[in-house]
């Protein structure tokens, strides 16, 4: 995972940027690579977490761990806790998983990477080695 942004509508956790007490992201996919089961939990500190879990059949992930933290019964969907006035109120939605979508790749402007710069340099060097002597010879003849 190279980056993430995770929000509960009030706070937004970001990586890179924020410092996390724990950050876990696990997935299972179907035959097309779509995310079908997941466990995602990010916490700046214990009791200050935003998470989402979906595995109604209990095949891969123990979503009830959210219940342990939030006193929620059953297989939990999305949950958030935040420190408020010395305790950690919990908000959640159960048995109503959200959806994952693979975003289309961004349109990237052409950029010069290190390999491209080397190749360009080599090409320019070849131009100077091949073309310049010919120009001098043409002058000499003319």
């Amino acid at each position, binding site marked *: 995972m190279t980056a993430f942004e995770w929000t509960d509508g009030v706070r937004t956790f970001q990586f890179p940027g924020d410092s996390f007490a724990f950050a876990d992201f696990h997935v*299972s*996919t179907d035959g097309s690579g779509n995310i079908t089961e997941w466990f995602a939990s990010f916490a700046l500190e214990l009791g200050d977490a935003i998470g989402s879990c979906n595995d109604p059949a209990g095949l891969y992930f123990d979503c009830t761990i959210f219940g342990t933290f939030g006193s929620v019964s059953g297989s939990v969907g999305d949950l958030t806790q935040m420190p408020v006035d010395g305790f950690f109120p919990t908000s959640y939605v159960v048995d109503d998983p959200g959806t994952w979508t693979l975003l289309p790749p961004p349109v990237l402007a052409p950029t010069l990477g290190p390999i491209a710069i080397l190749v360009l340099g080599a090409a320019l060097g070849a131009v100077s080695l091949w073309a310049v002597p010919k120009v001098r010879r043409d002058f000499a003849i003319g």
Partner: protein
Amino acid sequence: MLNFRWVVLHVLGSIALLVAVAPQTSAETYQYIGNPFTTLTPPLELADSVSGTITLSSALAPNLVDSKRFSS
């Protein structure tokens, strides 16, 4: 008559341009949209929900089983 020297230069130049303007390898970003909370405490409101994006260095393969993508 076709000058061999210029043919080589054109080939080199073409390769250089192709490499230079080729799109760089892009990461894959997955977006999660959760449903609004049904049980909540302030300062959250009923319209709030968990959502976010996760960016991976490559797309997820089919039929992954409990693939740990990140853990700390």
